């Protein structure tokens, strides 16, 4: 079984990838599996948002989840 999630990428994460796409993942996949699939190293991600809430790398994803990934480009 697989699930489809909607992924939005921002700033440098878009380079050679996409701005927004549907991505297929095995059932029970976590955010880290999504990163593996998109070949995004952990260190390139600053912020993870899942369904308009702060997400974690370990978080398990469900079908139709909306995931936003933003690189570490903040500061302060």
């Amino acid at each position, binding site marked *: 079984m697989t699930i489809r999630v909607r992924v939005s990428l921002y700033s440098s994460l878009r380079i050679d990838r996409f701005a927004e796409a549907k991505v297929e993942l095995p059932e029970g996949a976590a955010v880290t599996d999504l990163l593996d699939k998109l070949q995004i190293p952990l*260190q390139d991600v600053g912020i993870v948002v899942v369904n*308009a809430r702060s997400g974690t790398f370990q978080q398990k994803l469900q079908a139709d989840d909306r995931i936003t990934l933003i690189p570490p480009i903040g500061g302060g």
Partner: protein
Amino acid sequence: MPFGYNGKILHVDLTKQEWQVEEPGEKWYRTYMGGSAFASYYLLKLLKPGVDPLSPENVLIFACSVVTGAPISGWNRYTVAAKSPLTHAFGESEAAGYFGPELKFAGFDAIVIQGRAAKPTYLFIKDGEVQFRDAKDVWGLDNFETLLSIQEEVGEKRVRVASIGPAGERLIRFANVSNDVEHFNGRTGMGAVLGSKNLKAVAVRGTKRMESAEPEKVKEIARWLHERIKTHPPNVGLTNFGTPGLVKGLNASGILPTRNFREGVFEGADKLNVDAYASILHSSGTCWGCTVRCKRRVALEDEKYPLNPKWGGPEYETIAAFGSMIGNDNLPAVARGNQLCNLYGMDTITMGNLTAFVMECFENEILTEKDTGGRKILFGDPDAMLWLIEEVVHRRGIGDILAEGVKTASEKIGRGSEQFAFTIKGNDLPLHEGRGKTGVALGYALSSTGADHVETPHDVNFQGEGVAKLYALGLLDPVEPLETDSAKVRFFALGQKAWGINNLLSICNFTSVPIHAMTFHNLVEAVRAVTGWDTSLYEIMLAVERSMVMSRIFNLREGLGPEDDRVIRRWHEEMPGGPIQGKKIDGQEFRRAVELFYELSGWDQRGRPTFGKLVELNIEWLYKEIPA
């Protein structure tokens, strides 16, 4: 008895060598709460406008908050404030580390220092008692030697020392205050104010701990935060990679300040990023009670660029300042420059800006070898940067002019060098590119300390659903980093106050709202549990605004006006390449945004808070201070 704080402010008169304790009462503490507001309060009360910042009349403040020293990750910062010798306006700089909590444990929430000691002196504060000590044996020593000597002299291994190095003694206008040589109140030249007062250091030792109103609740939130720090992505990044982790993303996004803010992409960034850092990494370090452990120590056995793990490792700001900003991709040299500045007690952000300024002047033949006794200062040459550090700290040759900071140095040099001198309110720029995050540009323009990266919302984090982090403030629309429209002003006004919570309560941004592990809800819960006050996010944010308005009034009193709320020329010019090529900040649009900010803040068209605003903030007593 108050919870979370001591209820005691220490007043020190260096001229008379006297000290006394003020006990302002709960209402005062609840009105001002800490850090930046304590500083503004005393500066407005005790300082006359127009005073020379390096004269005995300047007032120097070390301030914690009502919650500093509560056992929660990141609740450990403190502010050093005075009228700035660099900007001649409100000066303030925060640092984490261990000094803030120790000051609280020693029985005081803040220290207000006036006058000037007749000879070099340091203060030793232990458990409510204050000693004026002769600093003749430590005067002239660098920050590390000073730390060791004071530890030995007072016979306390665990004493925490905020000190100045030779730069502060020589009144270099961007001298900083070092806290155990790993944490720095870097900005706005507070070290020069200590130097002008003949004050080498403040050493503190306290053996008590702060009591909370609801200790079990505080423990519960601290445990929750501890767990969240392990899984919350921005904190996972900081723990694993530290702030050097920012270099790559900024460069790939085209917003890594490069060659004096001329460009946003640095071809050598791969040699400065976190993978490269591994070659000099010694260990990670932390601050009082913090489980993030984002600090980095470096070591290298090398003849040219030797690195000592006890002298601090470069953070993102320094990597960019001594790296991309000067076109240098040699990381050991960056780290060496950082350690020299740490020992001498100079701000690396200003030193990097100065170096880039000199390099661009050389490129344009405004400065030549004639000005430097034969030394070429060109982009890409790390040894030129190290050479300049020595010239500045010894006030030799051109170093004596540069010791005045970018703005004054360019005015003294003249010859058109001003076109390459980038400052806002006299403060040179932390390493963030306003053309790629206009919220930061607004922050730099409107902060009372001039260009200041900890007083500004970094808008790139709130794109798309990233804005979820600000839902609690009622901000529901995604932020567009490149826009300067009304939506951006709304975001900025709220975001600035969200960041301001951390400055006010002396909390480390890297553990706190809005980006890092703490949530608005639990932050308020924790303040309630520590202080026992029936407080709210509303009351705290009102105090944040009060603090910002007070420092604004301080600046108005010093003669600053709406013309000072601006950004640098270069940001009004097109970015020459990279992902945001062609992007510039439109001058008129930006002005409209600044004026819109005045309007929504309850300030008049000249940027002066209205009487109504002061009434709302319960600081009518300051109305007479606002120039007509």
